[in-house]
């Protein structure tokens, strides 16, 4: 018995290079949801391995099992050829696995150095540990060109730099395998490029990188191998050089999808929304929107692009009547509807402004409500829904069923709890509620966030149909592809200001990316000229 084990070890050491990670038959259920169905995955040492799939395909669950957050119901994990049981993140770290989460796990008021040594201070007295850490950090930074000042306060760093601190943290803990979960969601294209250069350096130094994403562009640009997941199953493994974005997206969805939406020329008519010198402050007095002025006409889609957190959310909320305006004016069909002066969200709805907010769970619906209750949010005092002083639940259920069949919400059950619908179906229900009122102006934020590809196509078509029906649409999205395929004019926001406007026809990712990083439009265009 002991001989066999010895032999196995011997074979491992002398044979071909062991894969950094090998998962065999990983299985995980959450109640009735089968999140991972017998997953096999092999990640070679010293490569960048992409894992793609739609939201809910099971990518994050799989990585959480690898990092010890969940225990698999079945299957085995081998790290560097050795069978491992990973019971928690400590075990994962001890095995040399590091993880950079989508939402950073940093203490904002601490310095970079303090954040890095958090949990590995090395004794009760900080001093010795800090000095040792400082030396080690310098070495790591030099080696991987991370470009972070160890004494900077984390809260004052840009999002990209904060992410590099996370990478630094993992490396400081001796990570040989680095998992990054949707790392570019919060980055400008330039910051994303910087990240990919760092990943390349990591690879050269012999580290292994696992990149989880749903962006095909990144997979094609950065990875060596790619694994595709769909509905809890691993459907394909490919060498990146031997595949194409079309093939991967087909594997992800299980059918061909239109990545570009068919739409005709816009026919802009009268001005519907006019925003003049609008300023929005938070309750703490931080100015989030700075002197924004723009118009939206009937029959056009105006897109607002920008890295998330640059004031778009606050702008949209102010226009929806949710957030008070500090300065400036909002005109709707020539009438003053500046929020705060007797105008709130309910008043705006009465006048014909529909609003699909960015955050579905926090704002657009009450997840504990049934679908029919969710379908009247904001319209609960509509006379059609009343019977005397009572709500007419029969009429509401009928209206909800109508919305559901019109917007293909599945399952078509007005009594089902909103939380039990998938993200895409929840979003379609919200869109149905807002769009079927035939509003004159539609404010829509991140219409396809967390929505599967099939539903994205449907939602995009409905938004374009709305425009073609002569309605004004203001679209806020952090997905450049979405903005470029839907909008007729694109405004770019950076640090609270609208930095410029580009006609959709002239827009490309580079120009928009530079503007999102704060470069004025004419400079952005000339910078691009240099490049070409």
């Amino acid at each position: 018995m002991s001989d066999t084990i010895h032999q196995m070890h011997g074979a491992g050491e002398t044979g071909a290079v062991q894969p950094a990670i090998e998962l065999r038959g990983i299985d995980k259920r959450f109640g009735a949801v089968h999140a991972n169905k017998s997953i096999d995955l092999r990640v070679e040492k010293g490569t960048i391995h992409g894992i793609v799939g739609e939201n809910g395909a099971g990518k994050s669950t799989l990585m959480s099992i690898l990092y010890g957050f969940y225990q698999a119901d079945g299957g085995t994990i081998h790290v560097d050829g050795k069978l491992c049981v990973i019971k928690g993140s400590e075990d994962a770290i001890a095995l040399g696995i590091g993880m950079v989460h989508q939402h950073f796990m940093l203490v904002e008021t601490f310095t970079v150095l303090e954040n890095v040594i958090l949990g590995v201070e090395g004794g009760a007295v900080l001093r010795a540990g800090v000095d040792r850490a400082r030396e080690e950090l310098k070495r790591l930074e030099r080696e991987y060109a991370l470009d972070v000042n160890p004494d900077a306060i984390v809260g004052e760093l840009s999002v990209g730099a904060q992410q590099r601190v996370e990478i630094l943290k993992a490396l400081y803990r001796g990570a040989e395998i680095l998992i990054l979960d949707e790392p570019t969601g919060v980055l400008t294209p330039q910051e994303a490029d910087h990240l990919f250069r760092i990943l390349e350096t990591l690879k050269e130094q012999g580290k292994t990188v696992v990149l989880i994403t749903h962006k095909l562009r990144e997979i094609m640009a950065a990875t060596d191998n790619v694994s595709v997941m769909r509905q809890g199953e691993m459907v394909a493994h490919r060498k990146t050089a031997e595949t194409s974005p079309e093939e991967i997206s087909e594997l992800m969805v299980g059918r061909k999808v239109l990545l570009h939406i068919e739409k005709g020329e816009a026919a802009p008519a009268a001005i519907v929304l006019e925003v003049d010198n609008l300023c929005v402050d938070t309750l703490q007095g931080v100015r989030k929107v700075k002197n924004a002025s723009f118009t939206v006409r009937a029959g056009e889609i105006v897109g607002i692009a920008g890295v998330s957190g640059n004031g778009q959310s606050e702008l949209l909320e102010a226009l929806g009547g949710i957030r008070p305006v500090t300065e400036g004016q909002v005109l709707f069909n020539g009438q003053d509807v500046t929020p705060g002066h007797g105008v709130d969200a309910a008043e705006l709805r009465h006048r014909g402004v529909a609003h699909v907010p960015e955050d579905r769970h926090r704002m657009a619906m009450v997840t504990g409500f049934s679908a029919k209750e969710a379908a009247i949010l904001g319209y609960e005092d509509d006379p059609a829904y009343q019977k005397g002083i009572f709500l007419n639940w029969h009429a509401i259920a009928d209206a909800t069923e109508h919305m559901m069949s019109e917007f293909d919400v599945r399952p078509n059950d007005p009594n089902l709890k909103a939380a039990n619908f998938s993200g895409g179906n929840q979003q379609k229900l919200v869109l149905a509620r807002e769009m079927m009122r035939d509003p004159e102006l539609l404010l829509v934020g991140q219409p396809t966030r967390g929505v599967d590809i099939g539903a994205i196509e449907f939602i995009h078509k409905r938004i374009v149909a709305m425009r073609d029906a002569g309605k004004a649409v203001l679209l806020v999205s952090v997905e450049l592809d979405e903005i470029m395929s839907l909008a007729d004019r694109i405004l770019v926001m950076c640090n609270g200001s609208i930095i410029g406007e580009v006609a959709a026809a002239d827009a490309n990712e580079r120009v928009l990316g530079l503007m999102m990083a704060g470069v004025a439009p004419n400079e952005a265009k000339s910078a691009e000229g240099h490049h070409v």
Partner: protein
Amino acid sequence: MNDTVQLPRWIDVGVLPVINLLLALAVSGLVVLAIGESPSEVVEILLYGAFGYEEAWGYTLYYTTNFIFTGLAFAVAFHCGLFNIGAEGQAYVGGLGVILAALYLDFLPFPIMMIVAILAATAFGAAWAYIPAYLQARRGSHVVITTIMFNFIASSLMVYLLVNVLRPQGSMNPESKQIAEHLRLPFIHDMAASLGIEIARSPLNLSFVYALICSVLVWLFIWHTRWGYAIRTVGANAVAATYAGIEPGRYIIMAMMISGALSSFMALNEVMGVQHRLLIDFTAGYGFVGIAVALMGRNHPFGIFLSALLFGMLYQGGAELSFEIPTISNDMVVVIQGLVILFTGAMEHMFRPRVTKIYMAWHLRRHGQEAA
């Protein structure tokens, strides 16, 4: 990923509370054993004391009336996301409204008096709840803190009023004058007698019927009106409410005032129905037990009725128990009631994960093929 599994309603509102209740009784049984009495005998006396004979029924339902009012009061505020623990103070001040109306408007005929008393209780109870509500809605002062403080203020205020203002001349007791006979709520046994039905005397009175009516009204209000919808929206997700144009502050004030009014209806039972005068501390902790009643009843009027009945039984059966078995003092009865509150209120979710697991296993075995 959907981590939480939805249990069918009959498990959620039926099986889980019953498991918690049985566990509470089992632990109570151990306590009874520890003091050398037989648990089975205790249960027998408890049940007999609560339901064994006509008079017992009357007392049980009389206690139930108070618990229905305070339970409903807590539930309405809870649907708006508020933890109103000021039912004691609100009921106490509501009692002031009832007694003032009954003493100073004693020329009114009874049917009109009943309406006036309800309105007076509503006005006083709601007004007492309005101040914490306003502070919560407009100044962000937490309603738990302010309602506790308002309980103390109400208590001191009522002592002052009873001693210095309401106490009839020549009396040494800090209590008000008696309400005129024709203005008292009729006892159920008297009402039955006038119909020729003979039932045993008990404090059970007309306010029990009003409690049942209030249960139906609360149910209609919370689930079948747009105001109830708005209150539930604010309670479940205030951000979504603001997005919908439902101003949270407005509904916080509305829910708290309704809650205060419902608590104060307890005074109809106690002041107008049973004591016929305003006594010091007549609220006697019913306001606090109402929290457990509402939580155990899942904040639904029907559930509140059932748990109010349970607590009514514990109160009445417990009184009988301390009478029948001298070693089980009144304090022991409070221990048993406390255990029931602990297991059904505070630890109501203790068995949820396990029950969910068992249910899932059973469900999968039945529907396994289709699910996979």
